[in-house]
């Protein structure tokens, strides 16, 4: 039977039992508000649910009953007739429910008479209520009331037509008795009321032309709560279960600790009882886990209906095949995947399944099939949504991705079909030709993916043109206990959820598997592809360890990266405990746990760690930002140098502005004419203190060396603290002397961001500090950067922004043409990727902007210089020659200003 229906019956059965008890009291105290209220609630609930799961007969009946009881609840007087009518209604509901429980569908039959009677009662009660309100107000009002009651009588006249035989219209009691005349005839004719009561306990079964009486289970109790559910159920609040779960988790931990102790002792009498305890604990844990488990079928009970409705709307013929609905899953997870499932099914129906005619033309059956399957697989639940529709249109996805700048052509060339298909998980990529009411509103598979990501699951897609698509979602059984790999980094243990771990690779310097560096980014060559590496100790802000260790190859959706750790211990089932609210802001950790030896270990959030992977992630970020529609609010991560100088509050400068960090013997300083100089690399460099830092007279003095094209400056600080990567959320709050731009949360601490410009000689400060954006009252000129490589674009962006310019970074020549405008002071063009295309576009750019055009290349060969100069590029600069670039910008910047 339908899960939903089953649930409905169980719930209603329980409610009915409660009301049954109250009904006994109801007969004695018909005007007791509390009883009326609980009956009302029951009827109301049934009514609501009926509408939802499609039980028209019950719905009509409960609707009528609800309005009567509602009136009584509002204060109308409950008379004997009403009592009987309500009792009969309850009986009727029970009858229908019990048949529903037996046959799984609503019995055929008519409740018109009863409903008509209930309506009449409702009208009477309403009149009574309005009269009570109007009491003594005036003849007009009374007239109105009279008119109303006339109308009611007319209603009675209608009722009369449908009722068994004509009776006096004014007497509802008579009407009632007439309908029940068999019972009445048998009874002694004492008085009406008595009759009613005698009639009431005998429910109106078998009347109203209902079809053959159902074969009711033995015991003949009409209450479905007794008749139907196979095993008795008990409703327990989720809180209780959660608490039980927590306690069992604690027990598991304690047991683990005991086992650990026992392991270290040889031959103790503890062994046997401990083993028993261990077994019992495991069983208990399983049992408690089971209470949280629900068949996944609960999450898809609505789907057949949705698909049926969709088929109608779309004019398609779709069969939905559900497989493995009994597969159990933690209810918390069930809630989380409900919506994504509905979304995927809708997508299938809307986009994938073709119209019957098209299908026949392709030699497929007219009926499309959507298959939803769930099964357990290696400690996780796999859910597959497959269809036999047209398959994904990879060409269109690719075109869309290109158009929306998700990827560029060069990248596209390298993508396999599967990888192109995976692009549908990118935010904002909807391939529907037209927006329909059903799906295709631009939020689509990316939302599904993020939901799946959120529960630590993985999603993948396989498609074959003309044959169909299969989406596979793999989610953990539960969020409470996960299997985790215990690793060590910088002397500290961490847990990495096993579900994201693909493989382990041992790396040692000089061996086949070793870390390599590309432009500062660490990578591992693994079977012919380059795997970006996150050094765990770096991410943790601890000093980097050795390059020997293990790479934990991690996969989150389509993103793969390696985590370098110093060592790997083992896999352990860990009980996830939430992070303290004071630590929840740290994206690196998803929770913590206690290991067998009692140590608290942090659980790494692979999604949080993935942010440390450069290009692959920032690309996604860039796409999201573009959808924000404002390239100025790109939330980039800046690398910052954190140091102390004077006050307790740490200070920071963007690392991109720092040339070098040095430590110098204090005796090397040369003092003279009020200035301190340092003989540094063959030059005399002025030394200045930052903030309240004091220049040491002995020992080593930490210095930040800042070079600005031609000028070098040594800034003395008290202490270099750290280099951190952070989304710089600057709260501008300039200090009195202008040496601080504002403050930002860096590494979880409020940190002053220093304006280096105040320390640099005025004429050189143009390219010295990002503070110009803030301190200059005139908005700075823009720079357009065309750089197809995401990684390089990300690398150059902070440098350029730090130089104080408004930056527009684009990935293709076409976008560059779009973006260029007169306010641009400089246009930086990549010459590596598409030299001809870029050079060809220069004329067009020249037309639209008077800006200086600089060419960027990794290899500034004389040949390239010549070609570029011919095409009208002012200067060709090496991509990694940041200093020359900044100098060139500063120069042209001031030139531009003079001209302005």
């Amino acid at each position, binding site marked *: 039977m339908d899960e939903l229906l089953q649930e409905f019956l169980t719930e209603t059965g329980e409610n009915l039992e409660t009301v049954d008890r109250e009904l006994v009291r109801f007969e004695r105290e018909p005007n007791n508000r509390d009883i009326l209220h609980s009956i009302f609630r029951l009827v109301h609930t049934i009514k609501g649910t009926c509408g939802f799961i499609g039980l028209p007969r019950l719905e009509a009946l409960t609707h009528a009953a609800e309005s009567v009881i509602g009136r009584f609840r509002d204060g109308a007087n409950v008379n004997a007739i009403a009592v009987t009518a309500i009792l009969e209604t309850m009986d009727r509901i029970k009858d229908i429910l019990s048949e529903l429980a037996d046959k799984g569908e609503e019995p055929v039959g008519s409740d018109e008479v009863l409903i008509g009677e209930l309506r009449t009662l409702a009208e009477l009660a309403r009149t009574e209520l309005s009269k009570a309100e109007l009491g003594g107000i005036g003849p007009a009002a009374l007239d109105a009331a009279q008119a109303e009651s006339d109308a009611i009588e007319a209603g009675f006249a209608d009722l009369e037509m449908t009722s068994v035989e004509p009776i006096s219209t004014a007497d509802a009691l008579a009407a009632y008795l007439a309908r029940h005349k068999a019972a009445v005839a048998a009874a002694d004719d004492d008085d009406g009321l008595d009759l009613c009561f005698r009639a009431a306990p005998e429910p109106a079964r078998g009347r109203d032309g209902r079809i053959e009486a159902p074969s009711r289970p033995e015991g003949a109790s009409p209450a479905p709560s007794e008749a139907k559910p196979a095993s008795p159920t008990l409703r327990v609040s989720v809180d209780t279960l959660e608490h039980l779960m927590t306690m069992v988790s*604690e027990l598991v*931990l*304690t047991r683990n600790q005991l086992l650990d102790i026992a392991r270290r002792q040889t031959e103790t009498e503890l062994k046997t009882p401990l083993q028993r305890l261990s077994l019992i604990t495991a069983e208990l844990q399983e049992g408690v886990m089971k209470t949280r488990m629900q068949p996944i079928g609960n999450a898809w009970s609505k789907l057949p209906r949705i698909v049926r409705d969709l088929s109608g709307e779309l004019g398609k013929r779709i069969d939905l095949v559900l497989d493995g609905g009994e597969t159990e899953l933690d209810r918390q997870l069930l809630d989380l995947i409900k919506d994504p499932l509905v979304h995927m099914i809708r997508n299938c129906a809307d986009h994938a399944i073709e119209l019957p005619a098209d299908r026949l033309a392709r030699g497929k059956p007219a009926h499309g099939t959507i298959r939803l399957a769930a099964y357990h697989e290696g400690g996780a639940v796999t859910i597959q949504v497959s269809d036999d529709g047209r398959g994904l249109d990879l060409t269109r996805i690719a075109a869309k991705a290109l158009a929306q700048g998700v990827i560029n052509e060069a990248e596209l060339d390298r993508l396999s079909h599967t990888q192109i298909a995976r692009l549908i998980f990118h935010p904002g990529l909807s391939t529907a030709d037209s927006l329909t009411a059903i799906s295709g509103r631009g939020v689509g598979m990316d939302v599904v993916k993020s939901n799946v990501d959120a529960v630590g699951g993985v999603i993948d897609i396989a498609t074959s043109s003309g044959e169909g698509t299969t989406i596979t979602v793999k989610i953990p059984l539960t969020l409470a206990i996960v299997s985790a790999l215990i690793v060590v980094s910088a002397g*500290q243990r961490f847990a990495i959820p096993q579900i994201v771990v693909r493989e382990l690779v041992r790396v040692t310097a000089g061996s086949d598997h070793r870390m390599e560096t590309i432009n500062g980014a660490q990578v591992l060559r693994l079977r012919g592809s380059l795997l970006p590496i996150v050094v765990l100790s770096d*991410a*943790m*802000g*601890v000093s980097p360890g050795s390059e020997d260790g293990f790479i934990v190859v991690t996969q989150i959706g389509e993103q793969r990266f390696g985590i370098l750790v110093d060592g790997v211990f083992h896999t352990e089932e860990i009980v996830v*405990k939430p992070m*303290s*609210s*004071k*630590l*929840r*802001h*740290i*994206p*690196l*950790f998803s929770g*913590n746990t*206690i290991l067998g030896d*009692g*140590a*608290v*270990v*942090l659980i790494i959030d692979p999604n949080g760690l993935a942010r440390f992977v450069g290009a692959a992630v920032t690309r996604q970020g860039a796409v999201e930002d573009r959808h924000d529609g404002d390239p100025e609010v790109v939330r980039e991560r800046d690398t910052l140098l954190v140091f102390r100088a004077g006050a*307790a509050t740490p200070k920071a400068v963007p690392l991109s502005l720092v040339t070098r960090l040095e430590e110098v013997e204090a005796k090397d300083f040369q003092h003279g004419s009020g200035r301190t100089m340092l003989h540094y690399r063959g030059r005399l460099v002025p030394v200045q203190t930052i903030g309240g830092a004091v220049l040491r007279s002995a020992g080593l003095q930490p210095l930040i060396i800042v070079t600005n094209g031609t000028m070098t400056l040594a800034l003395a600080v008290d202490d270099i603290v750290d280099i951190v990567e952070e*989304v710089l959320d600057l709260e501008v709050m300039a200090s009195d002397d202008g040496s601080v731009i504002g403050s930002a*949360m860096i*590494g*979880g*601490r409020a940190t002053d961001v220093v304006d280096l410009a105040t320390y640099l000689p005025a004429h050189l400060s143009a390219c010295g500090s990002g503070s110009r954006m803030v301190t200059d009252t005139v908005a700075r000129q823009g720079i357009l950067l065309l750089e197809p490589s995401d990684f390089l674009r990300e690398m150059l962006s902070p440098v350029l922004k730090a130089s104080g310019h408004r930056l527009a970074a684009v990935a293709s020549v076409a976008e560059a043409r779009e973006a260029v405008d007169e306010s641009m002071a400089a246009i930086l063009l990549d010459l590596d990727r598409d030299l001809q295309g870029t050079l060809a576009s220069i004329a067009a750019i020249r037309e639209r902007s008077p800006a200086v055009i600089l060419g960027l290349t990794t290899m500034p060969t004389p040949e390239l210089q010549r070609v570029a100069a011919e095409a009208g590029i002012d200067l060709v600069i090496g991509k990694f020659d940041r200093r020359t670039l900044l100098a060139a910008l500063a120069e042209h910047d001031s030139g531009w200003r003079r001209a302005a």
Partner: protein
Amino acid sequence: MSDLLSPDAIDAGIESLDYVTVMIGEQMLGLPIRRVHDVFITHAITLVPTAPAEIVGLINLRGRVVTAICLRRRLGRPAEQRRDRQGNVEWVAIGIDHGRESYALIVDAVDEVMRLPPTTLEPAPAHLDPLWATVATGVHRLHDRLLVALDVDALLDFAMPAAA
């Protein structure tokens, strides 16, 4: 000036004010005894990289994970490490519940439990460090020194960066 008193002080104010007194350097501080559920010494704290400076790390307190907060750092003083007789690093901690979570305040040392008449509680002096002023409910003048009474809730209510 009773509006300076925290609910802690007012509730307990009828009879007496009971404190667990702790030391930070030479300064004696009082924590309302009703809020203290544990006093313990631990040798193992799991550091939390990139955590706010006030947070020392996480401690396993009989199967519960509690967040250890350095009272010194919280009060704007440099942290100090304490060693036991064998030279191992140890932490003296006060177990406190705040909200629905458990915390451990790391202190230099735990002194005695003190019962003081509410009348001896004076408002904190006006020139007290603003950081201290926000967490102090008042000051008791003992015969040889001052006891600064702390408001546990204010102490644990330090600004956190928004969830990233």
